[in-house]
């Protein structure tokens, strides 16, 4: 049966400042299903979305939504579709109800239908209790759901969602998917969603894989995972850190990933257990075959396009880890209030030298506030904190050269080129002359920024910005590294490279404190603290934390399951008291 196309593109080309962002893209999307638009940064996902919504004009080619030309007939296309931009398009100084009403008015929702529609949407998104709250005061997850509610206020036939789950915690992500599935099943809506989370791709009926402005593949997600059968393995080695196992394997296999209590391997060709034993460090390993996932196929496909090098990070200071066991970071009963709001409510933890310590939590859990206090950007209301034995807020300014800091916004000077940014931060830490030159060459090489050396940092894609931000934070070879959501919105390939570097740094004795939304990244940490509402709910090694969520129905919970379980327990406890 020939199904009608709800969105159809033919040979789309779009250039920005001489760069082909879309390079002859053609596809057809079926109605009534969820289609995922997947690809690394700079693949052209957002541009494609905007073209479909009639917000941009293509250089050549055409795009038709709901049978109408998006470019020529943009008003009537927009009247039939819903589009949620990356930052949700909310007015932060308007309340939830006011935002909803604004979009209802703009979309021309008839008055009699409204009360029912509002109620339905508020119920669906779980925002019913917060209608009076300003949108700016909502957590990231709630904002995202409100953005969705505003987009849905007049039920559209086609829903476009541009990276709706970036920077949103796992609980909220799960809830969003429940809502989207219901929309498709109950109302027959068609959804096009772009995402950097590959596990989300598997929830789509169909995916479009994009890379550098071209479509690599379109079809059901298992079209990507099925060919990987026989190439995916789980490996454990006794007496060895999984991270180290992974590091040794990188470069020898397509992909190596720490996952729970094992390292997950993807080999280039069909392989056998015996053949795998020949790989470095696997002589005595336990190896078993596992089912392939979408992500394996994705990585395999992209690896063929752009090679991932094994990171070197050779000249890191070889700190003697065993020599001192004193904690590098020491936090005790740390509190911070803003007015009557307690952002951080008495937390304590310690981080040892060479340890990767993760802070996990939903938006607004207090992670960033904790970070800002540790870095000396914000005074604590009470409690004590020591970083390398000092309180950075009052310590001499040179003490700050022992830390590196990378914030979630990748705070770079947009009007400066890559080299200029690197030089600036190197000089900021007092490097000069030959030393600075050496570090500059190292950074350009290590982070593969040579080609972009003279590009303005504001013109780079998110993945490159993240690399540059990290390079800047490492120019002075700090012994402690603070990373605040360093992988938010960054695609899986870039994330893998990033974690390789972090592991290498930790091996050389650098202490790393990191916050993240990606639950699978939590697996890389030596220890984790899960935060909610300014408190630490649990602090332990990843495996131990997951063990807490073990139930009969779910004997092998993922980190995400564990996280959700802990947060829900905490909410229930709060509700019952």
């Amino acid at each position, binding site marked *: 049966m020939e199904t009608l196309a709800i969105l159809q593109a033919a040979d789309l080309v779009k250039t920005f400042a001489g760069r082909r962002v879309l390079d002859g893209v053609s596809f057809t999307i079926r109605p009534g299903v969820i289609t995922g638009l997947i690809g690394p940064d700079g693949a052209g996902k957002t541009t494609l979305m905007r073209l479909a919504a009639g917000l941009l004009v293509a250089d050549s080619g055409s795009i038709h939504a709901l049978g109408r030309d998006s470019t020529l007939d943009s008003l009537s296309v927009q*009247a039939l579709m819903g589009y949620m931009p990356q930052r949700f398009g909310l007015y932060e100084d308007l309340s939830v109800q006011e935002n909803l009403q604004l979009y209802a008015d703009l979309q021309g929702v008839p008055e009699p239908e409204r009360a029912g529609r509002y109620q339905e949407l508020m119920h669906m998104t779980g925002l019913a209790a917060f209608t009076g709250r300003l949108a700016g005061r909502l957590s990231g997850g709630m904002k995202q759901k409100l953005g969705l509610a505003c987009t849905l206020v007049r039920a559209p036939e086609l829903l476009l969602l541009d990276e709706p789950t970036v920077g949103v915690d796992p609980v909220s992500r799960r809830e969003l998917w429940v809502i989207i599935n219901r929309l498709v099943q109950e109302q027959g809506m068609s959804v096009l969603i772009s995402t950097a989370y590959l596990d989300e791709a598997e929830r789509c009926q169909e995916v479009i894989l994009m890379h550098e402005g071209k479509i690599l593949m379109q079809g059901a997600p298992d079209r990507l995972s099925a060919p990987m059968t026989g190439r995916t393995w789980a490996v454990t080695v006794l007496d060895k850190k999984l991270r180290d196992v992974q590091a040794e394997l990188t470069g020898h296999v397509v992909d190596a990933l720490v996952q729970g209590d094992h390292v997950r391997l993807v080999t280039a060709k069909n392989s056998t257990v015996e053949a795998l034993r020949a790989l470095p460090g696997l002589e005595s390993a336990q190896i078993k075959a596992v089912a392939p996932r979408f992500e394996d196929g994705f990585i395999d496909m992209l690896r063929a396009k752009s090679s991932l090098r094994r990171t070197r990070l050779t000249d890191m200071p070889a700190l003697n880890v065993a020599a001192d066991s004193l904690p590098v970071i020491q936090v005790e009963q740390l509190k911070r209030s803003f007015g009557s709001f307690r952002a951080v409510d008495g937390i304590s933890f310690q981080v040892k030298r060479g340890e990767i310590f993760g802070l996990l939590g939903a938006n607004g859990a207090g992670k960033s506030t904790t970070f800002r206090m540790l870095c000396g950007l914000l005074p604590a209301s009470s409690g004590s904190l020591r970083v390398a034995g000092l309180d950075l807020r009052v310590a001499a300014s040179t003490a700050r050269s022992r830390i590196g800091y990378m914030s979630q916004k990748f705070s770079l000077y947009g009007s400066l080129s890559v080299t200029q940014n690197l030089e600036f931060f190197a000089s900021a830490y007092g490097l000069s002359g030959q030393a600075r030159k050496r570090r500059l060459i190292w950074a350009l090489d290590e982070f593969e920024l040579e080609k972009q050396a003279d590009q303005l940092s504001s013109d780079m894609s998110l993945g490159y910005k993240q690399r540059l931000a990290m390079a800047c934070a490492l120019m002075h070879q700090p012994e402690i590294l603070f990373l605040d959501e360093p992988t938010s919105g960054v695609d899986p390939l870039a994330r893998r490279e990033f974690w390789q570097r972090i592991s290498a740094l930790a091996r050389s004795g650098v202490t790393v404190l990191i916050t993240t939304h990606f639950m699978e990244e939590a697996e890389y940490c030596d220890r984790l603290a899960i935060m909610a509402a300014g408190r630490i709910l649990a602090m332990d090694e990843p495996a131990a934390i997951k063990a807490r969520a073990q139930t009969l129905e779910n004997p092998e919970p993922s980190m995400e399951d564990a996280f959700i379980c802990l947060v829900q327990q905490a909410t229930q406890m709060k509700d019952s008291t």
Partner: protein
Amino acid sequence: MNNIRGGARMRLTALVRKEFLQIRRDPSSIAIAFLMPFFLLVLFGFGVSLDADHLPVALVAESPSLDTADFLASLEGSHYFAAHYARTMHEAEQDLRSGKINAIVHLRANFAAGLRQNDGTPIQLIVNGVDANTARLTQGYVQGVWANWLARRAQSRGQELQMPVQLVQRVWYNSEVKSRNFLVPGLVAIIMTLIGTLLTALVMAREWERGTMEALLVTPVTMTEILLGKIIAYFTLGTGGMLLSVGLAVWLFDVPLRGSFWLLLACSSLFLLAALGMGLTISTLARNQFVAGQVAIIGTFLPAFLLSGFIFDIDSMPSVVQFITHFIVARYFVSIVQTLFMAGNVWSVVLPNVLALALLAALFMGITWKKSRKRLE
């Protein structure tokens, strides 16, 4: 068809309501609209004046006599001067140099004798010419004192003063020649130019920067409606500020309002539209708050202050500069308010200026409308 028009009205109402909610939540707009005119007008209304009073003057009489005392007493009696005696010319010159005094009135040793000679005696007046305007005023005031003194002296001797041509001056519209009467209405125009522009200079840029424009653009709303929503909201706010300023001018500073209040209100509205239009144009073209802010700093205050005819006479400027003043919104409004306040409903002044304001408003709105298409590029 009716349905669509109904939809447009609903969308517009929604946009206006949205702007008002945002204004209410962000006190800085309200501060711009009400606090700023109040603060600036009170400060300047009291502070700015071109009427020199109590000008510090040194009097030097080389050989004091009844005659010198008579002349100098009439200087001391004038409220225009704060006169004091200096012992020597040297001392007085020092004071003039250091800026302690504005002028020296110097009577030579032979003053009394010279008075009785046929060709008269000189009275030397030395002014500090750096501030040419004050210097000229000083000269004028001294001249007045001198003429009065001559007349009184002649009268006391039963003579009539021989002045072949006697200047009789009549100052219309502002018979007391109070500079506040023209400065305050002018200030209203300058301040409202700033406020009108500032209110809107960042609003479009902000929608682009915060990503809300993208969400608006995919709704059935048209660009005209978005712009209208902003104009209506900020127009209302600006009108509030305008009424406050006019009220202050009339009741606090006693500037006579001789023309019709309603005509003033109508002209103000048109002027506000032009000023808001200028802000929207800046905002739309810049699309970036930093650049929009910079352009607003450079492009609004000094041109309005210097080129509007607020204090500097436009007719005396070179023709190239006069041409440039035609693009200054404040220029037309300064002319209108000065006339409406002091002269009354003079249609021959109001109409051409109103026409020019309407043209400028249309020009700015046109540029804004043209440059804000429903696209992201």
